[in-house]
């Protein structure tokens, strides 16, 4: 990124807002069982916090969240979700059958934890994907 809004006010507000935004995003991801929310929504909020840093701090934000981290997070999220999906096939279950992945738990409890894991992976995936899209658009050809 070549330019940013160099403003003490914006940077101070962003510094105060971003931690709360991220904590609330993790709350939204993990509280999807009980309230509206989940991986997609929480991931978007995490991405929004990083994009806020990108806008207000410019180059400095790449030290906290490097440009390569976006795609890496997205890939890791998708890979973990795929592993979670294909793992039950090894023991003869069906795709994403959480009760077989967590075979030491009772079925409802296993599905509870499976849903939570899937939401967390989706959250990481959306987080990384949106930051990667923003970086690709903002840097415009790798300048």
């Amino acid at each position, binding site marked *: 990124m070549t330019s940013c809004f160099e403003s003490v006010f914006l940077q101070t507000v962003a510094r105060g807002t971003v931690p709360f935004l991220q904590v609330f995003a993790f709350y939204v991801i993990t509280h999807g069982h009980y309230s*509206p929310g989940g991986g997609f929504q929480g991931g978007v909020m995490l991405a929004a916090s990083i994009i806020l840093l990108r806008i207000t701090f410019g180059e400095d934000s790449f030290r906290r969240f490097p440009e390569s981290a976006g795609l890496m997070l997205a890939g890791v999220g998708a890979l973990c979700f795929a592993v979670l999906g294909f793992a039950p096939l090894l023991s003869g279950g069906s795709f994403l059958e959480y009760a077989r992945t967590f075979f030491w738990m009772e079925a409802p409890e296993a599905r509870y934890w499976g849903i939570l894991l899937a939401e967390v992976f989706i959250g990481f995936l959306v987080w990384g*994907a949106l930051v990667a899209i923003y970086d690709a658009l903002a840097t415009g050809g790798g300048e």
Partner: protein
Amino acid sequence: MRWLGLVLIAALGGILVWGASDLPRRGDPGSPAAVHDSVSVYYIRNAYEETRTPNIVTAVLADYRSFDTFGESVVVMVAALSCVLILLRPRRPAGDDGGDA
């Protein structure tokens, strides 16, 4: 050729509208998705016992219909990947425009 495209689009749009006009009205208690022994009634009755998840939407999204969610999230990842691949082209040495610029 332009007229062919226009006619094709009109025909496809007409088919879409024709199909949509046959959908049940929103909230119709007699629609196939809402009558008893359908999936939505099954989810409402059994989602909590089977998944310990009070939010039925989450239970359907991440458990009963999780293969759909998996596809959706892969679409998001592929969108980011193609954005990066298209927009962040590798820098070429000066004077070499690659022939397609």
